[in-house]
């Protein structure tokens, strides 16, 4: 979230699209209710299903699954063609005036630079036109034919209300009502917020769906504003934290990035990431990259990391490609992996195409499962009839299952969607011999290091030199680890303003990332978390919930990254002259000598208004990007592409380019994609409010509330297929089948798409073959093995199935 949960109450219009906050995040959703009750907000839900969120909405718009870009592209077209944008904001704070390089183009579904054989783009032409001064060229009049605003207008002019309705199946009048409500927030004193979740990310064009909405927010001047922003409602309690800490193939903590194998030179690695400003006078915060990186290497490798060895640059593994989970399971399926660890993760249920995942796991030599619960993955080798039809005798995988503690049995912090790090405390001992995750990792690591010490082996250096100064080495405490990621001074740090003074003494905890150095005198395990545990103590455990402004910015509650800031880009809540766009939502302001207010300013605090420096300091151009340059795989402007399994077998905008041309598809998976003829119904998987993924089926209370697997279909489809309420049905895709109870409902309705009736089948995903709820089929038996072109998030939300009554 750019903003945070409580801030939703400040919105005037709230759109839940690509998510279902009332069901998946009920206690955060309360702030929607508050905005409605106390801010007279209009609440809109756009979803293929009339969800529990929709049940309390002022306006519900149905759309066909996977067509959100068409819908939002239509919104952009509406805003531009009816002149409902916040002009001053767009001109000053977005790249609308920037001139795009001459080679850029878009024609019949493809952007310039497409390589059909490689299913990828040469993105050289997706760039700004650069001036001789080394800065990007802009046209303040916004009239240049190649300025971003003009290209934007042209690109989305195809997304007429008629086209939107034809693609999405949304009635045109309903679509226009949504547009009108959105447009009311183009004035400075009204804001819109988007609340989305996996309903956007889990598409082959998921990242671009989110981008389209973010562009709407930039056009309306809603980024950086209280009650505005782009608000990703993350799934797991600490998925934000794990992402922040970089536990992904290509990331390091704090969104530092792993080196590629071509990056053989340390300085080249740093320079590429220390982005130079693209406009005169702009601050480009990533210029500090080296400070964050060197401090990380010092935290991990201590004295072994020196300037001479480029701070152990060679010790970091170099990527030849990104090893996202689809890639990894593809390799595993090919027999190219020997070992796999699942720490609190149930891939047999969580990744698409269960049959392929199960077959892949069976090719491993060893599987280690660390979990508080008996997951399906740990039992993948056990036969459960139709639910998991395997022969244990033929599965040669060695499985080691290690019991971990749950939340109630440990100290530590979790980072919520609003970027708050909140500390929690142990309340009881775990059952049996279960251990905290940190102890389990320590136990494995210490044994491994002991083996390398005793036996030697291949390249043991990073393992032998990893810092491990914990009081009880086999049980590092949460406090020690939190202090390590916060960072400390390795030597006395002189005050940059007065070198005779010491700012931080050797050994002391740092106050924040502004104190980090690139000379090896600071160590910090995650720069954006710096400030979480300072010399003053544990900032994450703070519990002052006072809210002096009434805007919900409780700065004394826990710690929010970065720097305890609650609303990102908040400099953009003021106009270029420093006045708040809306005095009622004053987050920060210029007090004559610095920026201050009810939030921590997201800006260089002593740069006065009127300076050339623009608000988006994490971007080298300083302004929000309507044109994404080369940052996205499938184009600088989002374009509607159909799901890989589409019920209409065409793309109404460009029939020659149906689905995402830049998405990676593995050999064999393409053949397993369903066609509308054999599998005529659009299917989507989702969560129910009563359950959490594959986890709560292990808890009695949740099992009582929603005991048995079901699927949801419309009354019309039920009639067509002779299915009655409560009948048992079989739902199949080219990859397998599930059996479930039919819930026949008016909340799902057939949509008219390009002259064709499209039916949806809704598939909740909570059941499996372990737990206390009634046993059921893992829903991913049905789902396709393809992901978003940028993130490789699987396309769980749009695929094709058939459904029949079981007689």
């Amino acid at each position, binding site marked *: 979230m750019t903003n945070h949960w*409580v801030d939703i109450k400040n919105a005037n219009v709230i759109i839940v699209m690509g998510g279902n906050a009332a069901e998946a*995040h*009920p*206690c*955060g959703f309360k702030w929607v209710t508050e905005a409605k009750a106390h801010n007279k907000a209009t609440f809109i839900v756009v979803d293929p299903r009339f969800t529990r969120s929709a049940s309390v909405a002022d306006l519900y718009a149905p759309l066909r699954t996977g067509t959100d870009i068409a819908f939002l592209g239509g919104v952009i077209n509406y805003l531009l063609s009816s002149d409902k944008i916040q002009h001053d904001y767009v001109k000053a704070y977005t790249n609308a005036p920037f001139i795009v390089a001459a080679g850029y183009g878009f024609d019949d579904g493809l952007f310039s630079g497409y390589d059909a054989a490689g299913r990828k783009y040469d993105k050289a032409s997706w760039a700004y036109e650069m001036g001789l001064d080394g800065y990007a060229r802009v046209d303040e009049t916004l009239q240049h034919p190649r300025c971003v605003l003009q290209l934007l207008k042209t690109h989305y002019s195809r997304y007429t209300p008629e086209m939107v309705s034809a693609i999405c199946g949304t009635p045109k009048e309903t679509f226009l009502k949504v547009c009108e409500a959105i447009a009311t927030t183009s004035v400075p004193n009204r804001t819109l917020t988007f609340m989305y979740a996996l309903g956007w990310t889990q598409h082959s064009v998921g990242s671009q769906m989110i981008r389209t909405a973010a562009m709407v927010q930039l056009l309306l001047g809603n980024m950086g504003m209280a009650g505005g922003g782009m608000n990703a409602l993350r*799934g*797991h*309690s*600490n998925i934000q934290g*794990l*992402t922040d800490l970089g*536990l*992904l*193939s290509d990331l*390091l903590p704090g969104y530092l990035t792993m080196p590629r194998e071509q990056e053989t030179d340390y300085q080249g690695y740093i320079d590429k990431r220390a982005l130079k400003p693209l406009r005169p006078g702009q601050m480009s915060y990533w210029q500090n990259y080296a400070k964050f990186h060197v401090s990380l290497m010092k935290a*991990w490798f201590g004295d072994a990391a020196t300037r001479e060895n480029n701070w152990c640059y060679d010790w970091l*593994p*170099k*990527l030849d490609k990104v*090893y996202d989970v689809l890639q990894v399971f593809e*390799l*595993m399926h090919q027999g190219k*992996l*020997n070992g*796999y660890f699942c720490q609190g*993760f149930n891939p047999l249920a*969580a990744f698409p195409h269960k049959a392929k995942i199960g077959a892949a796991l069976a090719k491993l*030599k060893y599987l*280690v499962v660390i979990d508080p619960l*008996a997951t399906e993955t740990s039992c993948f080798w056990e036969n459960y009839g139709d639910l998991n039809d395997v022969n*244990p005798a033929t*599965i040669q*995988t*060695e499985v*080691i*299952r*290690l019991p*971990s503690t*749950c939340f*109630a049995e440990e100290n530590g912090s979790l980072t*919520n*969607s609003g970027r708050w790090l909140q500390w929690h405390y142990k*309340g*009881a001992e775990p059952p049996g011999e279960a251990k905290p995750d940190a102890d389990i*990792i320590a*136990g*494995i690591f210490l*044994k491994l290091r002991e*083996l390398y010490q005793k036996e030697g082996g291949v390249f043991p250096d990073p393992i032998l030199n990893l810092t491990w100064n914990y009081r009880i080495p086999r049980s590092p405490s*949460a406090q020690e*680890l939190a202090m*390590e990621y916060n960072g400390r001074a390795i030597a006395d740090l002189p005050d940059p303003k007065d070198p005779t003074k010491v700012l931080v003494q050797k050994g002391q905890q740092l106050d924040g990332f502004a104190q980090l150095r690139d000379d090896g005198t600071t160590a910090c395990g*995650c720069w954006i978390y710096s400030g979480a545990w300072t010399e003053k103590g544990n900032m994450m455990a703070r519990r002052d919930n006072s809210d002096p402004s009434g805007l919900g910015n409780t700065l004394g*509650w826990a710690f929010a990254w970065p720097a305890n800031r609650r609303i990102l880009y908040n400099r953009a809540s003021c106009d270029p002259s420093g006045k708040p766009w809306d005095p009622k939502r004053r987050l920060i302001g210029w007090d004559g000598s610095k920026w201050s207010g009810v939030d921590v300013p997201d800006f260089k605090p002593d740069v006065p208004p009127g300076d050339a420096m623009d608000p988006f300091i994490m971007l080298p151009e300083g302004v929000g990007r309507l044109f994404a340059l080369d940052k996205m795989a499938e184009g600088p402007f989002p374009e509607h592409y159909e799901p890989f399994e589409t019920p209409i077998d065409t793309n109404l905008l460009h029939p020659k380019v149906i689905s995402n041309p830049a998405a990676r598809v593995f050999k064999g998976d393409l053949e397993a994609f369903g066609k509308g003829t054999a599998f005529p119904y659009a299917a989507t998987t989702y969560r129910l*409010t*009563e359950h*959490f993924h594959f986890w709560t089926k292990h808890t*009695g*209370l*949740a099992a009582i509330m929603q005991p048995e697997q079901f699927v949801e279909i419309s009354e019309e489809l039920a009639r067509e297929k002779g299915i009655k309420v409560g009948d048992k049905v079989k739902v199949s895709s080219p990859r397998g089948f599930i059996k479930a109870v039919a819930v026949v409902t008016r909340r799902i309705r057939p949509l008219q798409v390009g002259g064709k009736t499209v039916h949806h089948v809704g598939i909740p995903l909570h059941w499996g073959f372990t737990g206390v709820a009634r046993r059921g089929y893992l829903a991913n038996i049905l789902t396709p093995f393809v992901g978003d072109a940028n993130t490789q998030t699987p396309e769980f939300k749009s695929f094709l199935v058939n459904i029949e009554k079981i007689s």
Partner: protein
Amino acid sequence: MDVTRRQFFKMCAGGVGGSSAVALGFAPADALAEVRPFKLARSTETRNTCPYCSVSCGLIMHSLGDRAKNAESSIFHIEGDPDHPVNRGTLCPKGAGLVDFIHSPSRLKYPEYRAPGSREWKRISWDEAFTRVARLMKDDRDKNFVATNDAGATVNRWLTTGFLAASASSNESGYITHKTIRSTGLLAFDNQARV
């Protein structure tokens, strides 16, 4: 008033029970009862955070005993932390039922081992488990570690083992997991960010 035969029967029966009981000496004083005692009166409170979704609601966990040496804590009730700025004491159905997660019959209690081709789990000790896991890792890493690529560049990567990290565990667990796993050169590393 339209009274059916059946209702009349019920009326009589109801009347009979009440009147006769009083008549036979069921004095009201004997029937006095109190409200069920408040079950949290002397429980120990611990603050925590809900482990399910990313709203991260504040929790108050109530456990048996007062942390005296001879009392073993057991959490018997959980409700929302009313001071928490986001959830303000509320919990959703999943959070409200957390006590059944803590005490789920599916909780794992001991390290277990399943041999290749076997149909069953075998309980093992932590030392056996750590030793076996470290041995499997080292053998695989030593055999398959890639120090340089075809172009001769140093890459120091280990691609034949992968790791999925838990997104419901704490930042501290995540941090030490990242640090440890990267030190081995592993790249097939992911978490629930995608699913």
